[in-house]
């Protein structure tokens, strides 16, 4: 890839606030043409409590710290062509680097990398390939980032069981790879803790809601589980979490959040299985502007680079201590007994019930 200009105008204006909308106007406009950092939203919007939001927060933070102008663009529809058009518009708008959250962008980036060799792309949770998956190719102007969600899920499952919960639930939005990895990790973490504690049984209800939104239906599903004895539900699907939290609140039960730290949203959230979307976008942009863009690389950020984890400080555990957390964290990092490397990912088994367990029983709710 072409080296981005290393010199950029120093920022000395008043600190830019975090407005997603107005921010760019308040950035020092006279120095740059258009918006240097662009984000294209996928099917969701920038406040989807998930991908788009995490990405957007990373961009904002970086731009604020480095005096960059930035903007997000909304495609006219969800299609490869529309994504490409949005990328084109972003580049017209002065984008030096375009960040695209999510696997839906894979075919679009595959084409964009050749169409716009002067522009750099950061794609999260995806890597460029043709729509029919026949060709995977990543050019030097594309940096692709994956996350080891199974590790985050593992930590969440482990912490929950260690904290004394034995009836767990997993409510994923849809069975896309990232969500599946979270879920599988969750099961394995619970199993690991259960074995460690010598428990007789741990139950996990396992379900995909089919959407990423807060609906009465999702609330009722969660409430039903809670009424049935489930103590904590890992709500793994953007705003599905809000429905689960509402149900938990009514039932006096608990929730585990996902992607970002959701502790502020409800007292019922005991912890969140985080992937550091914002941090990785920040680092990617930092690399880009420092002339160290990881073009041509597709990497998976895992626990060893702080790519995933639980927000311990804001967690609400009963007995699970920071020491416990650090211990399991370190074990994962160190890959003690192959703990990290043997974790099953989305392609390793067909269903959560196929994960070999001795204590945990997974019940798939269709």
């Amino acid at each position, binding site marked *: 890839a072409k080296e981005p200009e290393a010199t950029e105008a120093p920022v000395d204006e008043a600190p830019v606030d975090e407005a997603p*909308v*107005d921010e*760019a*106007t308040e950035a020092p406009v006279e120095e740059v043409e*258009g918006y240097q950092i662009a984000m294209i939203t996928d*099917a969701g919007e920038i406040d989807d409590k998930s991908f788009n939001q995490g990405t957007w927060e990373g961009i904002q933070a970086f731009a604020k710290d480095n005096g960059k102008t930035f*903007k997000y*663009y*909304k*495609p*006219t*529809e*969800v*299609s*490869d*062509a*529309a994504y490409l*058009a*949005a990328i084109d*518009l972003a580049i*017209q*708008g002065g984008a030096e680097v375009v960040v695209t959250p999510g*696997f*839906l962008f*894979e*075919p*679009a980036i595959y084409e964009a990398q050749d169409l716009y060799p002067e522009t750099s792309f950061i794609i999260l949770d995806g890597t460029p390939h043709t*729509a*029919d*998956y026949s060709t995977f190719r990543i050019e030097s102007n594309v940096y692709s980032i994956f996350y080891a969600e199974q590790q985050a899920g593992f930590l969440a499952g482990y912490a929950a069981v260690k904290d004394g919960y034995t009836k767990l639930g997993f409510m994923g939005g*849809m*069975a*896309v*790879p990232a969500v599946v990895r979270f879920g599988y990790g969750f099961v394995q973490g619970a199993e690991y803790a259960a074995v460690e504690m010598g428990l007789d049984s741990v139950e996990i209800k396992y379900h995909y*809601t*089919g*959407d*990423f*939104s807060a*609906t009465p239906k999702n609330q009722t599903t969660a409430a039903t589980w809670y009424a049935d004895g489930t103590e904590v539900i890992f709500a793994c699907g953007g705003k599905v979490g809000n429905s689960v939290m509402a149900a938990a609140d009514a039932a006096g039960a608990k929730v585990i959040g996902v992607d970002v730290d959701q502790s502020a949203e409800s007292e019922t959230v005991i912890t969140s299985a985080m992937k550091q979307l914002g941090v990785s976008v920040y680092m990617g942009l930092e690399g880009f502007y420092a002339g160290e863009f990881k073009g041509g690389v597709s990497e998976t950020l895992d626990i060893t680079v702080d790519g995933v984890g639980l927000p311990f400080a804001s967690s609400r555990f009963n007995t699970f201590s920071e020491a416990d957390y650090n211990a399991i964290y370190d074990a994962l990092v160190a890959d003690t007994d192959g703990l990290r490397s043997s974790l099953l990912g989305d392609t390793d088994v067909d269903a959560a019930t196929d994960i070999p367990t001795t204590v945990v029983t997974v019940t798939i709710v269709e």
Partner: protein
Amino acid sequence: MNRLKKWVNSPRFSDVVASVGAIIVGLIFGLVILLITNAQQAFPAFFTILKGGFSGGAKGIGEVLYMATPLILTGLSVGFAFKTGLFNIGASGQLIVGGFVAILVGVKGEALGSYQWIVAFLGAMAAGAVWAAVPGILKAVFNVHEVISSIMMNYIGMYLVNMLVVEMVYDKLKNQSLIIKETAELPTWGLDKITQGSGLNAGFLIAILFVIITYIILNKTVFGYELIACGHNPEASKYAGIKAKRNIVLAMVIAGALAGAAGALMYLASTGKHIRVVDVLANEGFMGIPIALLGLSNPIGVFFAAIFIAYITIGGFYMQLFDFVPEIIDIMIASIIYFSAFALIAKNLIAYILKRQKKKEKDKPIEEVKEAKK
């Protein structure tokens, strides 16, 4: 000259003027919002919207027409039903089942060779027709209000399609339908080249064809005469020997086929659009309602309304180069629709003005057109 004069005095003229008036008022309302949120950039942004697809040159125009294609068809679907006294709020469900069948054939029907897209397209129309036939039959035979049964069919269609996609044509990694085979893609007939790589394809021409066909059916044929008669007065139609029940079903079937065709044209375009397995109703179907209304349910009107909505939507897309929330364009479209609801009053106003002029000419006493109470 004479013809022009005649046209100016015809009701159709005031229809057009009324719709255009609504559009202007809606746009002005949008401008006001732009001015409130960011006065500095309001005017350049507004002009970008006005420039619509032209901001993107030939490609932009292509994008407008591409985007308008399914809108034309869903607009026709709703408008056609309106003309026959039915409110087809079920275009969303019909569109998605149509889209699904198109994709199914598009993915699995390789054996069909170069006929694949045609079969996919016809299959989609059939599926949409079947989906709409249910509310049609329920209305004709059981007197079930078509609005409620169409709403039910929307949800059933959505859930069913989501299930079937997962079972039959599922891209697990992206939680959406698989890509269709190249032979299933709509031919572009060079339209994409002319428009410098836009998504435009034969679908647009097919949409135009349907505009013409529905126009002829409604206005020139015996069948249209019967359909509209049933729409206005089912009892009198029965008296005239028209099979009202059969017509209700047929009208719905045609409306459904049009919506199904919209689904096919959406998912058979080579733009990489997929059915996403999410429990959300397809919004493209609902867009048919405002378009039908803006176009006064007249096929030609629907055509222009769809182009217009696509035009300013694309304009809104380009407007993102300025500092505005993209939702502004939704607000503007909504206000245009709202003001188009005032079309009737505008029409009367126009008629009144025209009368006044004639009155001056002939100096004959003719008074106000409508009695307004108090």
